[in-house]
């Protein structure tokens, strides 16, 4: 165990030594990997920021049933009781016109508009959540509710949220595909770097094999080198992402404040940032593994 640890320590030191010996090439590799990784990481950060904005939106289908303004509270209560007994309905929530106005006031950018109103124009309403999200069931229920005396308007609320959800899903898929493609690129970069290292150290590898070094012993520094290169690339990606978001947020905050919003594009949380760096290191290790596995076999003492 002590020997094993010592050999790993030596391999890490050797990997750092190789990086230090080729500072310019190592820095360029880290920048290339960093740029490649910053694209999907940036897309993910953008989606996360947008998701936080739309988090309050209901993605489950629901119906908003607006009552006529002349309807009194007892009549509204009776309608609510009737809706609750409907077998197709899972939940009913009453939203009074006063509560609706308060919610509207709390909405970013609308506070000034609401304050300018001379009276509350909003009606009492019910938010009805059906048991089934089936479009036919929703339509049938909406038609029935529209026919009830005292109901002014019925709106199927989930459509826009579902569209946004679908759009976000498509964007997530595109980012995943981009990440997969660029991950392949990262592996290819590391593969080639390690290939050059192996060929440069051909004599040392040959001698090591002659004097009894195992393949694992010879491979280890290259694995660490690949992982370190990936790690450096991951850190560069985070730096690029941080700088880009800071620059973008100057414009975004101006635009958002004109709508009365404090929206900003957020950096990755600590867990996601760590995942980017570890993922990058793992890909570097994998690239090194593929390269060393291929080229080490070709070097045999003569």
């Amino acid at each position, binding site marked *: 165990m002590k020997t094993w640890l010592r050999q790993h320590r030596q391999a890490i030191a050797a990997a750092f030594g190789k990086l230090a010996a080729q500072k310019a090439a190592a820095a360029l590799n880290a920048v290339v990997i960093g740029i490649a990784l910053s694209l999907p990481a940036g897309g993910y950060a953008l989606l996360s920021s947008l998701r936080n904005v739309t988090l309050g939106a209901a993605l489950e289908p629901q119906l908003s049933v607006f009552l006529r303004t002349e309807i009194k509270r007892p009549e509204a209560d009776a309608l609510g009781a009737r809706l609750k007994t409907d077998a197709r309905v899972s939940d009913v929530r009453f939203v009074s016109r006063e509560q609706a106005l308060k919610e509207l006031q709390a909405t970013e950018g609308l506070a000034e508009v609401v304050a300018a109103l001379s009276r509350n124009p909003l009606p009492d309403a019910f938010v009805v959540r059906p048991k089934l999200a089936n479009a036919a069931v929703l339509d049938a229920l909406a038609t029935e509710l529209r026919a009830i005396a005292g109901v002014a308007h019925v709106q199927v609320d989930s459509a826009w949220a579902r569209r946004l959800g679908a759009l976000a899903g498509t964007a997530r898929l595109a980012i995943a595909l981009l990440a997969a493609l660029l991950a392949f690129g990262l592996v290819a970069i590391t593969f080639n770097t390690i290939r050059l290292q192996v060929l440069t150290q051909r004599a040392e590898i040959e001698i090591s094999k002659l004097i*009894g070094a195992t393949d694992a012993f010879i491979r280890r520094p290259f694995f660490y080198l690949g992982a370190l290169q990936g790690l450096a690339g991951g850190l560069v990606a985070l730096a690029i992402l941080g700088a880009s978001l800071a620059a973008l947020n100057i414009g975004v905050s101006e635009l958002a404040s004109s709508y009365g919003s404090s929206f900003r594009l957020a950096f990755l949380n600590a867990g996601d940032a760590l995942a980017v760096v570890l993922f990058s290191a793992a890909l570097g290790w994998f690239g090194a593994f593929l390269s060393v596995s291929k080229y080490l076999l070709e070097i045999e003492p003569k």
Partner: protein
Amino acid sequence: MISFSSVVKRYPGGQEGLKGVSFAIEAGEFAFVAGHSGAGKSTLLKLIPAIERPSSGAVLVNGQNVGALKRAALPYLRRNLGLVFQDQKLLYDRSVYDNVMLPLAFSELGGREAARRARAALEKVGLLAREKANPIQLSGGEQQRLAIARAVVNRPSVLIADEPTASLDAESAAAILEIFADFNKVGVTVLVASHDEALIGRFAKRVLRLAGGSLVQ
């Protein structure tokens, strides 16, 4: 210790490096492998650490059929053999000391003991004072002595040298062989390939003479 039994080595293309060679070397023996260039000396020596594999026949080292060893087992075989080559195979981007430390990097020895071993090996070949030098700064004879120090630092039971004196003057060559003789005196089995009959003649040791891939005596 080392035995060859009807060993044939045929290279791709059909050329035969060895043609049914049989002999045995006992533990603690010192023997020369003599012959002209192309006689099969290097081929014979390369079969012992399994750098080459026999086409037929058996090569046994300490009772182990090295021709049948799997790739993963070769490092453990080679750790028990000290190998010295005509071209030394040194690392010229490392110091003399680091070159000798190389085989100890994958040994079980701790750092302090490894350093002591490396310096002892350098002292044995007379290079301790030059431990910080780069091998390129050493003469041919000194480089060969460095290669010997690296070969013996793991205290192998067998020392194999392929033309270790070929590029050296007579005095340096004799000094190198004296070092081998010293190791032999402490029980190390030594097998040296050389085409220098005069040099071989100075040491009253067993000679395996090869000609055209066959033993001639």
